[in-house]
């Protein structure tokens, strides 16, 4: 019995190991353009990965229906990065080495984006993503990266400006010690000063996943600041917020919108009213954003829906347009065309179909996206995005202010 089991197991594992060889052979025959979609389907980014992957797939399907790119079909291969750089690197290895993708789209966590960057650089693979660590540009030596999200510093700047404009010139700061909040500390303080305010009390970082945040909450409001800014994720922000309420804090609480969704509102009930939160938002009401929503089967309703999926939509459109324009799938050639099409000058286009027609006619184009205008600095970082400030009133997010951040 045991011998048979072992033999069967060995045969089975050999089959599993060998299957890629068989597959690759089959795929090489039809020669589609392989594009990697590496998204967080579990872990911290889990709520957003599916909408990004879905946007990639749908854009590619639409382009394939109309005849593909350079006459070739686009084959999107989705992998889960588990919001973890270790799993992300293994998945990226598979995409780069087994599937021979020319680009990896959709990474969300900065740690994953930066973790796979050495492999992508070594193999000349493009990276189009939404990550915000200020360190991201440092890893790119070949001009292969394009970020569809503003960097941390500009999140802090935009939120500080929004706070000052809504009448709060002094604020204290406490955030989880992760890449996101830790690089915000300084830029938030600087931006407050620049806008005519100041940072009060001490600004500090706490460890996420603590059992209690009482000490942090006490420290935050010790100097009784008129406002506090807590750029946490939903779990730690909810815990800190509860402690603030328990301590009788009467000032204004500012947060990041991804921490104040339904989960937060349900957890704290009426206490959520009055919390202000901000976020980089898609241009609500703009034709491009509505077109994206319709493509994925949603109805534009004046609210933010799929905040990351719209960036996934832009990533795929822009990449495919650049391939069409470059008449090549070589990333080292395509990268220049991404920059040219994103920044213009040229005629405004919002979809691959529109752009491909103009490219065929030999006209310059400028892509205008669903997540932003999609203009890049020379280092591939996004130039600007809309930020919106909301206030929770009667359990609902009510828009207060909107600004565009030049980053």
């Amino acid at each position, binding site marked *: 019995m045991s011998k048979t089991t072992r033999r069967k197991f060995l045969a089975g594992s050999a089959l599993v190991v060998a299957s*890629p060889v068989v597959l690759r052979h089959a795929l090489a025959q039809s020669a589609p353009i392989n594009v990697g979609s590496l998204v967080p389907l579990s872990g911290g980014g889990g709520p957003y990965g599916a909408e990004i992957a879905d946007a990639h797939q749908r854009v590619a399907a639409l382009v394939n229906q109309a005849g593909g790119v350079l006459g070739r079909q686009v084959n999107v291969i989705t992998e889960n990065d588990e919001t973890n750089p270790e799993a992300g690197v293994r998945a990226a290895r598979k995409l780069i080495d087994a599937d021979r993708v020319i680009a990896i789209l959709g990474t969300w966590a900065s*740690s994953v984006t930066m973790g796979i960057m050495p492999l992508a650089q070594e193999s000349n693979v493009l990276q189009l993503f939404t990550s915000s660590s200020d360190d991201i540009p440092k890893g790119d030596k070949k001009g292969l990266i394009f970020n569809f999200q503003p960097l941390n510093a500009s999140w802090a700047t935009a939120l500080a400006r929004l706070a000052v404009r809504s009448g709060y010139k002094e604020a204290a700061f406490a955030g989880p010690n992760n890449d996101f909040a830790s690089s915000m500390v300084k830029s938030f303080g600087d931006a407050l000063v620049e806008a005519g305010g100041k940072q009060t009390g001490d600004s500090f970082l706490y460890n996420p996943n603590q059992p209690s945040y009482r000490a942090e909450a006490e420290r935050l409001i010790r100097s009784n600041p008129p406002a506090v800014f807590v750029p946490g994720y939903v779990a730690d922000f909810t815990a800190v917020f509860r402690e603030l309420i328990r301590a009788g804090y009467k000032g204004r609480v500012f947060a990041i919108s991804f921490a104040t969704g339904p989960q937060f509102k349900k957890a704290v009930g009426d206490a959520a009213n009055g919390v202000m939160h901000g976020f980089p938002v898609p241009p609500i009401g703009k034709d491009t954003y509505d077109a994206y929503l319709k493509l994925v089967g949603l109805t534009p309703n004046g609210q933010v829906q799929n905040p990351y999926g719209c960036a996934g939509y832009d990533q795929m459109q822009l990449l495919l347009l650049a391939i069409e324009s470059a008449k090549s799938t070589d990333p080292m050639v395509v990268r220049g065309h991404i920059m040219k099409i994103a920044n213009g000058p040229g005629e405004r286009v919002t979809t691959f179909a529109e752009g491909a027609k103009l490219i065929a006619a030999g006209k310059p184009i400028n892509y205008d996206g669903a997540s932003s205008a999609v203009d890049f600095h020379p280092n591939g970082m996004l130039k600007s995005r809309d930020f919106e400030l909301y206030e929770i009133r009667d359990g609902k997010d009510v828009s207060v202010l909107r600004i565009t951040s030049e980053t």
Partner: protein
Amino acid sequence: MESYLIAILTIAGIYAVLALALNLQFGMTGLINFGVVGFYGLGAYTSALVTELLGLPFAAGLAAAIAVGAVAGAAASGLSLRLSGDFLAIVTLGFAETVRLVLNNEDWLTRGPRGFIISTRPVPDTLGRDGASLFYLGLVLVLALVAFLVLERLRRSPYGRTLRAIREDDLVPATLGKNVFAYRLQAFVIGSVLMAAAGSIYAHYVQTITPDNFTTPIAILIWMSLVVGGAGNNVGAVVGALAVTAIYEGSRFLMPFIPWLNAEQMSALRFIIIGIALIAVIRFRPEGLLPEPVNLPPSRTAQSSTSQQQYQVTGGTAS
């Protein structure tokens, strides 16, 4: 595809070293170490700091990682080895968590959650991309081979027999005059050193490390490798690491065969497959794919039957 297999073999080789180290600690000595990633991460960061901040070559980074791994292993186990099994497990888990928090919070040294970029590689510049990855695979295989040979030698020696005796019942070797504490300490330190060395090699392979690279799921993966492969058997530890990596990676290629599942469902299915495989092994083959060899000297059965006969003969004469 070849380069993908090379990359996956490289990762599997690193896991195999970790599984071998854990096999010495748990499989042979019975020390429950849930803090595998603590030593692994310490090795990675030590090596990164030594090469990047001090500008020393990779060999120095590896040596420093080994030294730090030894000190950390001695400290963690010296403080807690007198505790019985379950308590040691909790202490090691706490150790790994402490390491992760220190790496995450001491920004001035480790750059915290922003991650540490490593440019030093133990690969000659003249090699191309494919050459470099082959070279790296070779390096990992050398480490795995060294670890395997050393541990296999230990296992077969009287030293290994003492470790197994301690695992089964520490009172017996203690009665025979063996210093049980010293043996446990040594086994734990040797294991920690190997884990730190694996961490060093891993860090220079991936070239960007963050505290997120060293979270408990990796420790669980290594435990899975050992349980699936067969605790107490060095070949089993290696086979287990290869099998677990094959399942983890191979399940990616199922996607084209199940087109009606979307990416999210497919990704969940992968974890289900991995879980079922583990449960199936524990249910139907709790001793692992390759169980621990029976450690009787080959002549013993012959000897005992002879003495049995002699006894019978003498017994017969006496009556």
